[in-house]
């Protein structure tokens, strides 16, 4: 209660300071603040790209410039209202974001950084040289002000409020995106792209989306820059590569993982030259050294650090509990979606069939024609010595590798070569041999990412408080809580995944896979690295899942687990299938014994 009063008081105080800002600052400081707020928009855009999605872009200044020129040209040449100009700036910049994103986002890391630099330089040159459109080096003077009726935002004091409104709106929008299914998808890509893909996230699409959203934000910033009341002038030299680096520095300084950090970093770095005037020419040297030092000593940025320091004093999120009705449904396959056959289908139905599957890596035949069938509501084990091709088989089935030859039939449909996110959508989920969680997300959020294919809110639903998207978000959360409770980790829900123990991480990964409500769960060595007690817990869990009707295909080395749980076993050696049958048959199969114990034992 007391705390609530303190928070309310703080909020009122901050709001009052923000509103009174033009009266508190002198003209030049207010002007600097305005420019800082304009810069905060491209930096917020970069937050989507770098902070959320973990992709590098050094083209923000180019998008910023595209936005500025869009709005300037529309208002000057065609007498558009600046309000429309700002909207057009968003869409034109976002369009160019897609244009750059589609070819380059297939590239990783350094290539991407480089390609974006190249794009930035090309845009800069086009703005400069295409003078019939952009008026080249003369730049453009923009006579129009933003207006509401007779009221014009023609003084920097007035413009401040306009900027504040736009910035707050877009920051809140960014905040809502972050805590939506879209935001979790983007974060998942940053944290582990392969796991994100196998949770049903179309990673390429999402990256392009982050890129164009970031570009759009930069475009809005550009439009607001073009209409700054005391300049209302733009020229190409402003939108240079150096400015992209400044945006990057702003985000990094504030903390690339926080929205508040992005805004504060932009404003702060805009004021910094004023405060460091005594350094004179040395200012930029200090600034460069500062970037390095932040990277080394303060990777989370200033705001990130403050957040970490404040954490013990902030209220802990309330422990969520799932309704019992949901808990009992965990592990039950989704019902009847996209005509995939329902739970009530006859027993003995084939869920997965692999026919003569081959996968070659160059000359290496990792899989050399294997075939087996997985029956509904059974635990099917895939075993074999190291290097026999088990994991390759799982990777081909789950879509990470394309098969060289052969078919994978899932619920009777050929799915070989489909990307993982499509397979997850049709009811297939997996866990990984070396755990692939999203380490910087909480256990709960990890599982919520698993719900991706079970939800459909789009970007608009994320940003606007639409009733159905809010209801969906509540459902996602409750089902995730239920899945966590199912694996016995209810009390760890707000713990970051990286801070969990090994066994707990395994169970979170299982809960995450279950959240997708799959027909078929692929598990790659779920018991690896577990102690006997943890393995025991795991075995109970698997039995429970099978009883719920889930079909499981697992790779495992723990023979005790395999023999006591499996309904059927397929044995691989050197990429070939050497046995297939019930556990009791496999135990006595001489080929299997030979593969495991070596030829001498058998012949002896």
């Amino acid at each position, binding site marked *: 209660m007391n705390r609530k009063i303190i928070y309310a008081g703080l909020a009122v105080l901050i709001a009052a300071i923000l509103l009174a800002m033009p009266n508190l600052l002198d003209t030049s400081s207010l002007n600097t603040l305005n420019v800082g707020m304009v810069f905060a928009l491209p930096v917020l855009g970069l937050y989507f790209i770098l902070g959320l999605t973990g992709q590098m872009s050094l083209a923000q200044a180019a998008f910023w410039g595209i936005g500025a020129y869009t709005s300037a040209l529309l208002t000057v040449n065609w007498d558009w209202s600046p309000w429309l100009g700002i909207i057009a700036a968003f869409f034109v910049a976002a369009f160019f974001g897609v244009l750059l994103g589609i070819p380059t986002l297939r590239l990783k890391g350094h290539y991407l950084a*480089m390609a974006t630099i190249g794009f930035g330089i090309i845009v800069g040159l086009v703005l400069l040289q295409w003078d019939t459109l952009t008026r080249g080096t003369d730049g453009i003077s923009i006579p129009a002000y933003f207006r509401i009726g007779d009221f014009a935002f023609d003084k920097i004091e007035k413009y401040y409020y306009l900027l504040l409104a736009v910035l707050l709106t877009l920051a809140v929008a960014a905040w809502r995106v972050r805590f939506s299914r879209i935001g979790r998808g983007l974060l998942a890509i940053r944290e582990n792209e392969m796991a994100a893909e196998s949770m049903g996230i179309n990673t390429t699409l999402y990256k392009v989306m982050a890129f164009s959203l970031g570009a759009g934000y930069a475009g809005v910033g550009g439009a607001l820059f073009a209409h700054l009341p005391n300049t209302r002038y733009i020229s190409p030299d402003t939108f240079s590569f150096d400015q992209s*680096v400044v945006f*990057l520095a702003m985000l990094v300084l504030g903390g690339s993982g926080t929205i508040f950090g992005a805004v504060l970093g932009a404003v702060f770095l805009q004021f910094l030259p004023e405060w460091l005037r005594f350094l004179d020419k040395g200012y930029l040297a200090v600034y460069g050294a500062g970037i390095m030092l932040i990277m080394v000593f303060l990777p989370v940025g200033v705001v990130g650090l403050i957040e970490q320091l404040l954490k013990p004093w902030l209220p802990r999120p309330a422990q969520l509990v799932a309704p019992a009705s949901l808990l009992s449904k965990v592990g039950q396959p989704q019902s009847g979606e996209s005509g995939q056959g329902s739970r009530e289908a006859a027993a003995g139905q084939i869920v997965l069939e692999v026919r003569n599957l081959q996968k070659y890596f160059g000359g290496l035949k990792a899989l050399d024609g294997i075939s087996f069938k997985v029956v509904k509501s059974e635990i099917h084990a895939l075993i074999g010595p190291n290097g026999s091709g088990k994991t390759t088989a799982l990777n081909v089935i789950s879509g990470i590798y394309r098969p060289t030859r052969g078919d994978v039939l899932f619920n009777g449909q050929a799915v070989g070569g489909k990307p993982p996110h499509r397979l997850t959508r049709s009811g297939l989920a997996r866990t990984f041999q070396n755990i692939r969680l999203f380490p910087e997300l909480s256990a709960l959020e990890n599982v919520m990412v698993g719900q991706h294919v079970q939800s459909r809110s789009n970007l608009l639903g994320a940003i606007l408080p639409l009733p159905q998207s809010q209801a969906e978000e509540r459902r996602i959360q409750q089902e995730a809580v239920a899945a966590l409770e199912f694996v016995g980790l209810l009390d760890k829900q707000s713990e970051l995944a990286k801070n969990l123990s090994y066994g707990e991480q395994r169970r979170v990964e299982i809960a995450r896979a279950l959240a997708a409500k799959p027909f078929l769960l692929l598990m790659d060595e779920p018991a690896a690295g577990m102690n006997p007690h943890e393995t025991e817990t795991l075995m109970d869990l698997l039995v429970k899942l099978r009883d719920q009707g889930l079909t499981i295909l697992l790779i495992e080395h723990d023979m005790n687990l395999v023999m006591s749980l499996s309904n059927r076993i397929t044995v691989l050696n050197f990429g070939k299938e050497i046995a297939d049958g019930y556990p009791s048959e496999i135990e006595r199969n001489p080929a299997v014994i030979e593969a495991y114990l070596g030829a001498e034992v058998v012949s002896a």
Partner: protein
Amino acid sequence: MEEIIQLLVSGLAYGSIYALVALGFVLIYNAVGVVNFAQGEFVMVPSYIAVVFLNFWGLPFILAYLGTILVACLFGLLFQQVAYYPLRHRTYLPVIISTIGASIFLQNAALVVFGAEPKKPESIFRPGDTFEISGIFIVPQYVLILVVTLLLVAFQYYLFERTKLGKQLQATAQDKTTAQLMGIQVNHMIIFTFMYSAVLGAVAGILVSPLLLVSKTMGGGLALKAFSATIIGGFGSVPGAILGGLFLGIAEKMAARYISSAYEQAFAFIILIVVLLIKPEGLFGEKISEKA
């Protein structure tokens, strides 16, 4: 025809410089898996050092150039310690940002120390002198650039393929863990790579500074184009970097003359994006195998 040969000559000379800087990129990338965005400063800093030795101290060319290369070694070592080493266990993103910071720092430290005015280093050949062969004007410095680049590439081939140190460097580049298990001092190899990369930059700087003059921004443009050259040639490939550099040098001059001089500075990146789209493994590179 004469004009084309003229463009070829100057394209080859500038291409050689791109190739030298590109080699520096590739070696560091192969050793530690990061792209050094301050590679341009590996050219700029030694160029200023050479100016100090030649213009301020009046040292003879041989001494000044050897001294520059020595200081470049030290610089490579320091750079590795400050901008890379503390971040070696992190992902590539912090390293990229850190090297960008290093680049800003070094450029502006140069501004503080040497002032904003560019410097003209003493040079072996008098600026503006050329010799003419049947209508084609050849700048002696271009010839020097080509010869030294050729020698350096030959030396590097010998170093990497024929010496124990080279084998150790290659092993480190391919698999650090295994190299460590084989008793190779991986950290020393990484330091050496940075030093060697700085030496390549120093040689490029010494060769090119009589042409471009020495200023704080001289390295930035070179580095961006050299990086494009590494991708155009095939990223991570040493021959790819050399061929890519030469190709880019020539292509740029031809495009500037016959397509548009206004967009000269954009061609490198246009070619880059086109190559990335149609042949991401580079014109002279091998197909990059995917890892799961």
